[in-house]
């Protein structure tokens, strides 16, 4: 056996042969080694087969109980539009949780972002504000708050649960101070028109969500950032000893979460045409629930964007089915709780089976 150490930089010049491309092609196993069963189970649909079934069951229930109103194009648009805010937040939350953390402050951060950006729009720049300025402020405020979370969590270090609990309280308070507890109405109709309009019949909000999800999927599955996220969450000590800057990466995860809060704030303030310290209420729990239902482990290191999206859709469809059947929100909340418990139990069972293999 002869072994030569790789000269540094060797890989930089490596040419990718056709064979390698075939072998490493996108997501497909090099050969169908273990038959169709394995390849089906490792496909996006296969891995989330339980979730897909749950979603299908919900849709069927919707068709049966309120078929005339459920299976319409406009209702589909409603379902999707209602999913977007939680959806965008859940994408960020997926990164944070895979990376071994949690963020309880997202609801408050969304509120802060809406208030701050609408303040800019209604006061400082009244009259000459443009909609992109609102967007910019919301996104920057989100990322800045995320950075605060990230710095304390990574370098403090403060346990994520506690740190974001603190930010959750503080950001809400700050939002109330800035807005003086008033709802600030956006006068710039261009802003509202753009984000509540639609392109080719698809609501702009849905397009934003799809873009965020797509970028999230690519970042998680195709970049060094995503790979490090799994490593940092799966085994921080091994990641550290392998030379990954675990603290810096942890910090960046919360900045990313803040970015998603900013985007979510834009969507929500466009829809309500306002900014208020009450706007983000409860979104932290909705997004954590969606991520967990989607199969991401709270212990970190495991999880998928696709699962999260299905998780978000399940909640949204559930919501819709209940509304169409004139059931009140309290019953809905109970069903939601039950679904979380059932989903997690099923996933743990599946995970154990996988471990035994």
């Amino acid at each position: 056996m002869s072994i030569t150490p790789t000269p540094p930089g060797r890989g930089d010049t490596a040419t990718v042969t056709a064979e390698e491309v075939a072998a490493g092609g996108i997501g497909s196993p090099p050969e169908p080694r273990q038959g169709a069963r394995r390849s089906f189970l490792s496909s996006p649909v296969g891995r989330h087969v339980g979730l897909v079934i749950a979603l299908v069951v919900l849709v069927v229930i919707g068709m049966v109980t309120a078929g005339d109103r459920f299976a319409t194009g406009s209702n589909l648009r409603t379902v999707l539009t209602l999913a977007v805010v939680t959806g965008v937040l859940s994408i960020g939350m997926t990164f944070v949780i895979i990376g071994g953390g949690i963020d309880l402050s997202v609801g408050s951060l969304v509120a802060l972002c809406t208030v701050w950006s609408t303040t800019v729009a209604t006061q400082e720049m009244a009259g000459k504000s443009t909609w992109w300025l609102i967007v910019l402020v919301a996104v920057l405020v989100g990322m800045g708050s995320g950075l605060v979370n990230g710095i304390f969590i990574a370098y403090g270090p403060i346990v994520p649960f506690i740190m974001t609990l603190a930010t959750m309280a503080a950001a809400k308070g700050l939002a109330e101070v800035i807005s003086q507890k008033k709802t600030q109405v956006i006068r710039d109709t261009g802003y509202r028109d753009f984000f509540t309009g639609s392109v080719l019949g698809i609501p702009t909000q849905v397009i934003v969500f799809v873009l965020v999800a797509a970028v999230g999927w690519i970042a998680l599955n195709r970049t060094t950032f995503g790979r490090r996220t799994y490593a940092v969450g799966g085994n921080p000590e091994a990641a550290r000893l392998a030379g990954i800057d675990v603290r810096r990466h942890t910090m960046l995860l919360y900045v990313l979460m803040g970015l998603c809060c900013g985007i979510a704030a834009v969507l929500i303030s466009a829809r309500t045409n306002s900014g208020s310290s009450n706007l983000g209420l409860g979104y932290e729990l909705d997004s954590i629930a969606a991520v967990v239902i989607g199969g991401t482990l709270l212990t970190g290191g495991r999880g998928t964007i696709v699962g999260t999206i299905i998780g978000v859709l399940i909640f949204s469809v559930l919501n819709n089915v209940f509304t169409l059947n004139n059931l009140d929100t309290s019953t809905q909340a109970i069903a939601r709780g039950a679904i979380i418990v059932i989903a997690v139990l099923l996933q743990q069972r599946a995970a154990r089976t996988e471990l035994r293999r």
Partner: protein
Amino acid sequence: MSHPVEPRDGTAGEPAGRTAGGPQLRKQSPVDTATGGPEPSTAPAGEQSLRPLLDMRGIVKVFPGVRALDGVDLEVRAGEVHCLLGQNGAGKSTLIKVLAGAHRPDEGEIRWQGEPVVLATPLAAVRHGIATIYQELDLVDGLSVAENIFLGHELSTGGFSQRQSMRRRTRELLNRLGHPEIRPSDEVRTLSAAQKQIVSMARALSHDVQLIIMDEPSAVLDPDGVENLFRLVGELRRDGVAVVYISHRLDEIRRIGDRITVLKDGRTVGTNLPADTPTRDLIELMTGRSITYVFPERPGVPSDAADVLTVDGLTRRGEFADIGFRVRAGEIVGLAGLVGAGRSEVLETVYGARRADAGTVTVDGKPVHRSVNAAVAAGIGLCPEERKAQGLLLMEPVYQNVSVSSMRRFAVGGFLRRGAERAAAQERTRELEVRPDDVDRVVRTLSGGNQQKVVLARWLLKGCRVLLLDEPTRGVDVGARAEIYSVIRSLADSGLAVVVVSSEIEEVLGLSDRVLVMTEGRVVYSGDAAGIDEQGVLDLVMRGQAA
């Protein structure tokens, strides 16, 4: 009983050349030792029962990739101090965990007072009167001494805990142990290691015990503490309680032991030996191998080879002091010593994972700043001791584990070129002959030896100058070891400087060009590996401070 033994003795070219010990010492088959055997030693003063208190037969425990226990017999009588001897990795810890109900054996029979028992849980073991004092203490830091002692069997009436009587009992136990200075209300966090040991012992005694297992109890005690411990062991023995005593210190075993069982490579190689068995025989039993490891040839380091790694005056208070050594290109330097001698700590400090209080590390003459990132950038790679906890991303595929330290090389603007990444990883794993040859496989499903190769492949791909290997064959099947050895040697031959830490002395000696022997944080020997043998090293480490 199936006994899939013989591949080892059969395949080993030269059957254990060294074992010159008397035939009466080598009782490998369970049948020989089963029938009570001659019992020449001074019989314990306790009650003389005809049947043993505990009788374990043919215990087998398999972990993925390793047979940790491969047919162990242990027979303990009431009122005796039974010593368990064996090198690190011989299976002592696994055996006591089986006995304590923490592991369930895959094969074998346990009889307790003549009746077959299943010790399914720690609680079941305690109910039978088996208490364990672990080496790594298993106390809850945030609770008080009394709360720890009665953890799991609190005294209570109608659900209300009887704090007063638990305190009183605790005080009685601590007095009996000769440590009245520990107060029942003290928080365990605030106690010293030795005091925690006492609390552990009090906890064992708080049960109605008939057998106490002590795993290296003297390791954290000062001489007074050891005397006190011996007094206690003597008392227990007089009360008819059996003690299974694990220690590396032969002088202790001589003083308090009644009989000795020796383990090696997960098997019993000597049972029911009298406590006065000559040291030479015991060491031979502990080291003599039923298989001979094949170590690769040492080609010899050219005299003009440059120093690659230089460590000078490295110190971490409380762990090790003034460690200095140099490793040349193509050289393997071994660090030998017992667990706790500070070897792994030295390695992790060189790697920057622990902060040095003093001393310098240089690679190719350039000083390395004290951080992991600086060490990696300087070309140092570490294969950590706890491969699963510190080395691998267990749920990720092989190729991602290989490329994790050189990811940037395969990224264009943050996007990974997975084809190139995978191909490069595959090239390295093929060189090291990782099996199965499938880089998409989840690392967790590989055997220990192949997992180790994955970590090696990582640094091979990174292209490092210095390789630090901490227990490279821990959890590696005996059969796969020779392969790991030859991989390590060929890495050195390619010009790397290699440092190997291992608890298996034979491994360090067989693999390295030079060795350092460490005891209690200091280097007590440094020289050519050929200049010292296993017994010499054992002698140095067992004498401890003497050197």
